[in-house]
């Protein structure tokens, strides 16, 4: 694959930086007490959501994980409403009813981040089933982690998606730890991608730190899906710099050496190096993007801080679409 054009490469850079700064800001404002509950951050994994969602239109669907802020952002959900949801405000993308693990956007095809590992898998496949049934060209992406690859639903849904040739791409974000359990100890055969063979679909292992590699693999898979040729399983090998959730230092089960080694292959730095090395962009251009992103994040924080809390008076409304 030839290198995409400059504007597009800078857009990938910018998207990854948006996710990074968003998550760093979430971590800071969580510590400051602005964000209730639990948050699971995507720092270190930015290339995956960015490279995959770069192929999706607004009408396509995404089923997400507990570590799903990035999927919402990369799918186009405005930063403001994602941040406001983390802050528990009425202006959040779920009106404050969801929180970090239940981000939804009907407008942007976000079928939900999820508090139960693996729930993004049937969400993606079901939306793909629906698209095919309705005769649209929409596709769906189901994100999950190495932990999610071990739940029963993974096996049931990959089988169903394959026999029904659904327009879905299964994207495993293998960050090597299901909470604290090492992938190497948890997964027979030590490959998620290899499982695709059992379900008669292509299985691809990708360097999840290289946004262009992710972009290329996802492009092929999404093209297959759109062409009616069925699902693909992509395993992106990646790493989270933080613990499982904010508050987990992430160092009880991982060595400092391992963490530092992965940080040397930081997805944003890798792309920056390439852009500068190949003289595609200047440091000044990257800095300019950096300051634009800072402004965006500050806007999201201001918006969240100024947004009202949801009204307890309405707490019992909306349980049903057709009220009883």
């Amino acid at each position, binding site marked *: 694959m030839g290198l995409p054009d400059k504007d597009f490469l800078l857009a990938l850079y910018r998207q990854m930086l948006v996710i990074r700064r968003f998550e760093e800001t979430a971590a800071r404002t969580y510590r400051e007490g602005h964000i209730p509950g639990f948050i699971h951050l995507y720092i270190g994994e930015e290339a995956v959501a960015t490279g995959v969602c770069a192929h999706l239109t607004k009408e396509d669907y995404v089923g997400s994980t507990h570590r799903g802020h990035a999927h919402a952002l990369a799918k186009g959900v405005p930063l403001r409403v994602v941040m406001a949801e983390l802050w528990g405000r009425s202006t959040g993308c779920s009106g*404050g009813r969801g929180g970090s693990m239940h981000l*939804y956007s009907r407008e942007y095809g976000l*079928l939900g981040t999820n508090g139960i590992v693996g729930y993004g898998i*049937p969400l993606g*496949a*079901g939306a793909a089933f629906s698209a095919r*049934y309705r005769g649209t060209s929409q596709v769906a992406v189901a994100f999950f982690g190495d932990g999610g690859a071990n739940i029963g639903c993974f096996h*049931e849904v990959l089988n169903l998606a394959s026999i029904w040739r659904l327009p879905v791409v299964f994207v495993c974000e293998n960050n090597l730890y299901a909470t604290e359990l090492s992938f190497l100890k948890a997964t027979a055969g030590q490959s998620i991608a290899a499982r695709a063979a059992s379900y008669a679909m292509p299985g691809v292992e990708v360097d999840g730190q290289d946004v262009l590699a992710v972009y290329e693999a996802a492009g092929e898979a999404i093209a297959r899906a759109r062409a009616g040729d069925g699902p693909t399983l992509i395993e992106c090998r990646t790493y989270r710099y933080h613990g499982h959730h904010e508050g987990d230092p992430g160092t009880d089960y991982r060595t400092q050496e391992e963490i530092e080694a992965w940080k040397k292959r930081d997805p944003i730095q890798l792309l920056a190096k390439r852009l500068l090395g190949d003289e595609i962009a200047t440091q000044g251009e990257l800095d300019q993007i950096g300051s634009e992103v800072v402004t965006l994040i500050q806007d999201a924080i201001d918006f969240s801080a100024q947004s009202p809390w949801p009204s307890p008076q309405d707490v019992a409304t909306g349980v*049903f679409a057709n009220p009883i």
Partner: protein
Amino acid sequence: MREIRYIDAVREAQWEEMRRDEAIFMFGEGIGPRGGCFTQTRGMWPEFGEKRLIDTPLSEMGFTGIAIAAAMTGLRPIVDIMFWDFAYEAIGQIINQAARIHYMSNGQFKVPVVIRGTIGVGQSAGGHHSCRSYPLYTQMPGLKVVIPATPYDVKGLLKTAIRDDDPVLVFEHKGLFNTTGPVPEEEYTVPFGQAVVRREGTDVTLVATSRMVLLALEAAEALANEGISAEVVDPRTLVPLDKETILGSIRKTSRVVVVDEAYSPCGVGAEIAALAADEAFYYLDAPIKRVHTLSVPTPSSPPLEQAVVPSLERVVGTVREMMRQ
């Protein structure tokens, strides 16, 4: 009016609704060319084919989850779970997802999915094919729970369920499949949240669900021979629950016995008893009584099975004892 079987009424409801709305499709094991293991889709295959009558592999969690996302994105699935015992394999999808997504998404996503299947003791089906799991789901906000006792009701309620924009769970007792009753040829629906008085009486109210409605009617007949006038109320839907009809009957008779085939703890009887205590306490002339299936896993052998489920003797005996007080 013509009389048809309960299971035929199920099929008619699905058939008519699928004809009306192309967004409706079915998932289930054996619902395609076979016509369903209870004949619930017999004859439908030539009209709807593999696009809309989808024979699923044994993957309850997977296909229920797929149906839920299909419902979120514009379709109206009917999941034929066959035996409600099998829904335990999909319970996270039903409770964590179907029930909650409308609320958690702040109303952005509707989940118009119907999950229907059979329940009940009485065919020596054993511990994995006899569940009556409806009380479990009544505890979960976001689910509507439908429990029809007659062919007329199952057709009308199933049609309402299919047209509803929320997840609706329909519990069909296999002991009722071959019972017959009047069902009009003309279009009709039965609204949710409207109980029906099956038999009028003045001395005691029997609140009964599903197959227990037939048992309660039998008991009322037997009690009439002893000079006791029993009223039989069938809630028809547990969520929403028609409290007014139930309370109206209790206020009239001043006594209530709940007859239900599910288990007693935190169950239908407990709910009706709490309702009566809360809102009809000063009308009551006797303690509220519950007749449920014994809290044991459902055994297979016929004499054991009959020993756990509410019997005519238990219902009549409970009322008789109550009337002596």
